[in-house]
């Protein structure tokens, strides 16, 4: 009986770890799909416009953004070599990374919320290796939720 209890504890521990690893894998798949979708969109735009966009209108990954109300006063100190910055905000702000921006741009086909059309699912599956395609289908059916 005691050995059974120990195995039962180990089983629950392992189930928890597997759940976390599935979430980690789903996030990695989302990121890969969003990035490849971004590259494909930019390639199509450049072919359509027959030129890349002006360099001062694009931001290469990786980046993070800090957004705040336009009434916020931001006091900023910068070291001469630009290795150190110090910002003081007098109001609310939010920080997001490039992945979050790509998701908000819809480049993950809504997989993160289980809203994905059949057409989009087909494209999303084409962005990942065969071994990962079942996971994409699961996410499209709302597995993440």
């Amino acid at each position: 009986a005691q050995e059974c209890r120990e195995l039962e504890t180990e089983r629950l521990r392992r189930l928890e770890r597997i759940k976390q690893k599935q979430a980690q894998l789903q996030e990695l798949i989302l990121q890969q799909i969003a990035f490849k979708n971004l590259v494909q969109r930019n390639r199509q735009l450049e072919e359509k416009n027959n030129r890349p966009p002006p360099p001062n209108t694009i931001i290469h990954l990786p980046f993070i953004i800090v957004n705040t109300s336009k009434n916020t006063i931001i006091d900023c100190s910068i070291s001469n070599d630009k290795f150190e910055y110090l910002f003081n905000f007098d109001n609310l702000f939010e920080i997001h990374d490039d992945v979050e921006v790509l998701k908000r741009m819809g480049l993950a086909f809504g997989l993160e919320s289980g809203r994905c059309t059949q057409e989009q699912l087909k494209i999303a599956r084409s962005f990942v290796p065969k071994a990962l395609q079942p996971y994409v289908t699961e996410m499209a059916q709302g597995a993440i939720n």
Partner: protein
Amino acid sequence: RFQELQRELAELTDTEEKLDELINKSSLQLRLLTEDTHNKKYPSSLIVFKLGYVRCQDLRDTVDPPDQIVMVIRAPPETQMQVTEPTEGYQISLKSSRGPIDVFLCPED
């Protein structure tokens, strides 16, 4: 019950090992897609790397309300970001050890 638990644990071990392998492969693929050094070596992936950008308008479309201040931070790897809550306001400090940090505001129009 004991034998059933042993069998189930063996299955969970397989499942976890498969997940570890897929996670490692996916992480490597993402790193190869976005890493600066790797992409400079292989022309084909350099093209992908060059297309890994967003436009200012894309950023503006993701904040609500759209007329907010959007500050963009591009930092070298391993840059330390510290957010502290002093008595007044909030402080964000950035400290890089591998090169200058780029900070700019995303234009409104």
